[in-house]
């Protein structure tokens, strides 16, 4: 087992890993930028090393500084946390080349899953469902139409060089297809100088379902159920939950086992998450994150598995201590991401926390690196706390989320606590009846209504 782990991250996830180290009797070193010198993870760790100034590029993304810190502190493994260098193949390779263990998958797996096209080819071969569409660039409108009929309308015509929604058109029926095709190609040509387009089935209202996976170096892999992360705003997850209110146990077992088989066949080591779109009972692979996820605590609550501990253990070469049949989904969990942002305008609100009181009691877990007197730096992301709540049923968990949010005090920065309080009261949300567009549409409607009321 490792004697000393260097944690190349900050904020609540660095603290999460420090806690795991303490609980495993492993020494911890936290590297940090000058802006995070007073961070809770720095305070709690056995050692800390300042590796550079505030900008991430010069500190948390500064590979030589991190490796030097590992050398001078005598660490034997490096945990990259989430974000920053967590999915950087180069970093993982250099960590291993310098004789440290990278607490994560092999550089090859990071690379493979980091390239979306390669990732899709890989998992397709291993049996995972993908969004059906053209195998590549469409050579003509006729070819497109033929494929569209095959996969079924609506379809999405997308520029190969695309981005930001440009060169992207939905064709809802056979009649629309030719005009959508020509609009997409000409828009693409205008925007990117390249009119090449491809086609895939269009999912108007999918849910975001992701499967938590865990593999060891002895050929074992399990899935730990799913998380439903459909409540998003600008592609940022806001509230996650598990299990998904939309999945049946059979669907869970089906996609979970497929995904677990896939990582087993890959020989994947460590924690990973496969993200799927889910609509009308069908799953469509989106991508695989080869690291811990922000919302991993949901899975910890409903399975009783300490994911960070297991991640460290498998990185050290230990075999998984459980098989698939040992994993049971117990109860329901929510995670509210509390950001230092205005709850309506979403303007970031860094600054000093003058009062902090964490909610407590049964089924309530706070993963947060803030404390009273701490200043949230403007340099990094705005996540200040994750409120995770567990209960026997979804309904009980929602009631508990409400009471925990009510207990939580974070002053005098703005936080998204009021946003969470709003969302959990909306009947559609309470009914579990939502998709990845629901929150943005709901907020837009509400805004429109309040504008109307004001005029």
């Amino acid at each position, binding site marked *: 087992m490792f004697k000393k782990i260097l944690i190349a991250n900050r904020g609540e996830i660095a603290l999460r890993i420090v806690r795991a180290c303490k609980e495993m009797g492993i*020494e911890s070193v936290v*590297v940090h930028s*000058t802006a995070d010198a*007073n961070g*809770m993870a720095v*305070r*709690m760790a*056995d*050692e*800390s*090393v*300042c*590796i*550079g*100034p505030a900008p991430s590029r010069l*500190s948390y993304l500064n590979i*030589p*500084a991190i*490796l*030097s*810190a590992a*050398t*001078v*502190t005598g660490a034997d493994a490096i945990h990259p946390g989430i974000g920053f260098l967590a999915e950087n193949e180069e970093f993982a390779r250099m960590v291993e080349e*310098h004789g440290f263990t990278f607490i994560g998958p092999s550089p090859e797996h990071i690379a493979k899953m980091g390239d979306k096209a390669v990732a899709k080819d890989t998992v397709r071969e291993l049996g995972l469902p993908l969004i059906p569409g053209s195998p590549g660039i469409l050579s003509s409108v006729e070819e497109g139409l033929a494929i569209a009929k095959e996969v079924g309308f609506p379809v999405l015509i997308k520029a190969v060089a695309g981005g930001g929604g440009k060169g992207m058109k939905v064709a809802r029926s056979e009649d629309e297809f030719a005009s959508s095709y020509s609009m997409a190609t000409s828009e693409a040509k205008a925007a990117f100088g390249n009119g090449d387009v491809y086609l895939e089935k269009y999912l108007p209202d999918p849910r975001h379902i992701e499967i938590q996976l865990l593999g060891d170096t002895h050929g074992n892999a399990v899935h730990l159920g799913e998380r439903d992360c459909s409540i998003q705003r600008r592609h940022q997850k806001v509230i996650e939950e598990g299990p998904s209110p939309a999945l049946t146990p059979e669907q869970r077992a089906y996609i979970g086992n497929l995904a677990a088989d896939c990582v087993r066949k890959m020989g994947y080591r460590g924690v990973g998450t496969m993200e799927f779109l889910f609509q009308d009972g069908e799953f469509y692979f989106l991508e695989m994150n080869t690291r811990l996820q922000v919302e991993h605590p949901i899975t910890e609550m409903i399975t009783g598995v300490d994911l960070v501990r297991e991640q460290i253990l498998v990185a050290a070469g230990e075999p998984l201590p459980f098989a698939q049949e040992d994993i049971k989904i117990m109860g329901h969990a929510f995670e509210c991401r509390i950001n230092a942002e205005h709850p309506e305008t979403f303007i970031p609100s860094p600054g*000093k926390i003058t009062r902090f009181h964490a909610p407590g009691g049964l089924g309530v877990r706070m993963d947060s690196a803030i*404390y*009273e*007197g*701490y*200043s949230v730096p403007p340099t990094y992301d705005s996540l200040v706390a994750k409120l995770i709540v567990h209960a026997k049923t979804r309904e009980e968990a929602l009631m508990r989320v409400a009471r925990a949010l009510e207990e939580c005090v974070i002053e005098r920065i703005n936080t998204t606590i009021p946003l969470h309080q709003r969302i959990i009261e909306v009947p559609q949300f309470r009914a579990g009846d939502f998709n990845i567009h629901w929150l943005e549409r709901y907020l837009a409607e509400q805004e429109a209504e309040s504008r109307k009321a004001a005029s």
Partner: protein
Amino acid sequence: MPNTKKLDTKTGEDKAMAPTTPPMYIDHEAIRKLAGLLNETGLSEIEITEGDKSLRVTKSAPVQTVAAPAVAAAPAAAAAPAAAPGAVAALSHDNHPGAVKSPMVGTAYLQAEPGSPRFVTKGASVKEGDTLLIIEAMKVMNPIKAEKSGTVVDILIEDAQPVEFGQPLFIIE
């Protein structure tokens, strides 16, 4: 020495040894003024915050006795969880105008190789561009040069000591 702590474990063994550790900066003047105001006004506490600085003075009940010892110590923004006991470390060097700070994390060497003479010694004069030390990082030896001429007033590290970004290494005046 002053900053070894950050790189050593905080298990307490290095707490006693901090002979070179200069005292924490104390704004005597401000404290005296506030103490005077406490006496004058009969208040029991004054706290002032300005940006990320703060100062709090308190006086316990019988208001006419002399300033309490713990006054300035009262950690206004006092730090949170599980503060380990011990070193208050080299505060004033951090802000010394003549401090030469480490531009990287690594291991500091005060001579070119074992047995060689040190690049500089305390009291020596250095010219801009003179090598002061070498920091080994990623198995590369990085010479650190003086950015201005002056006299080496203090050497704050030991040979072969790990140093972190921003750590004061020398004082050159």
